[in-house]
């Protein structure tokens, strides 16, 4: 599994200029690595607000990444709809999906993976999945899916 320093280095190498975030219990472990990086996080209070800040950054020519937890992705639906479908902006989301690993193994009781998948499809947001714990996990390849043209989401398995 890539460590936080490797993850932050990969995010910088992917060309992101700003990170707008509300951490979850996994994304939060990146905090020390982010603090000393060019991607010092923009801390917001709610996930829809994170998307609003990203809209402004995109209008200003920056390349932001919004990193949030899946429950916040649920909350941010209207802001995502507005950014992606009204404004046609190349919004980039990294969404920590709580319980995804357990769901994959058939042992999970958390409904977050189920609804995260349903909602990303409902918002017609191109997306990919990445599990950093997999033996052949390729972080650079996963981030490359995010930097493709247009709006994208990367579901980060937890």
């Amino acid at each position, binding site marked *: 599994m890539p460590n936080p320093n490797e993850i932050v280095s990969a995010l910088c190498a992917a060309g992101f200029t*700003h990170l*707008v975030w509300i951490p979850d219990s996994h994304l939060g472990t990146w905090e020390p690595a982010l603090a000393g990086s060019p991607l010092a996080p*923009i*801390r*917001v*209070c*709610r996930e*829809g*607000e*994170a*998307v*609003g*800040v*990203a*809209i*402004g*950054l*995109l*209008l*200003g*020519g*920056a390349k*932001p990444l919004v990193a949030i937890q899946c429950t916040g992705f649920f909350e941010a639906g*209207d*802001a995502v*709809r*507005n*950014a992606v479908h*009204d*404004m*046609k*902006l190349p919004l980039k989301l990294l969404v920590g999906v709580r319980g995804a690993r357990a769901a994959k193994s058939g042992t999970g009781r958390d409904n977050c993976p189920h609804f995260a998948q349903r909602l990303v499809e409902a918002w017609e947001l191109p997306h990919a999945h990445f599990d950093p714990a997999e033996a052949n996990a390729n972080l650079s390849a996963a981030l490359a899916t995010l930097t493709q043209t247009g709006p994208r989401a990367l579901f980060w398995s937890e």
Partner: protein
Amino acid sequence: MTHRDALEVLAARRGEQVVVTTMGSVALWPQLSDLPLDFHYLPSSMGQGVPLGLGLCLARPGRGVVVLCGDGGLLMNLGCLVTAAQYSVPLYVLLIDNGLYEVTGGQPVAGAGRTDFAALARASGFARVYEALDRAAWEAVAETALAGTGPVFVWLKVEGERGKPTPSAPRPMAEQIARLQEALG
């Protein structure tokens, strides 16, 4: 003070700042200004005007951004004041407080007439907060309020107006974005 009064005072003193309009201001501002730095955030996600303005400030350090937001929109996203107050950026939040959801027919917002928005802004960390009950009071502070270190919060109490048509932006969103980005360079 009418909503139009509040915007006329802004139009007379606005410099090279981006002006972001939301909701009812989208209908009025084009009658007063039609510059490439005017951005009408419509269609919008209600409550995201201030975050949008903050994002523009962070992307373009030194560029002033004025956000015209309504009380209904701000109430949907009060945390954005706490977020914005973390940054020393030239963001000027002009709250057009009419106590109503004007676009939906004039229903009162929660806490209409009872909410102290200036106190909310101060408690969120805004060091510069102004309030104006009438046009004369707004004219007296506008030049000071619209300059210098931000973020700045200006609480403008305006008359509620019912029966106004749903606003529409003067240009399609794609054209607005291209125009703004060209103006920003």
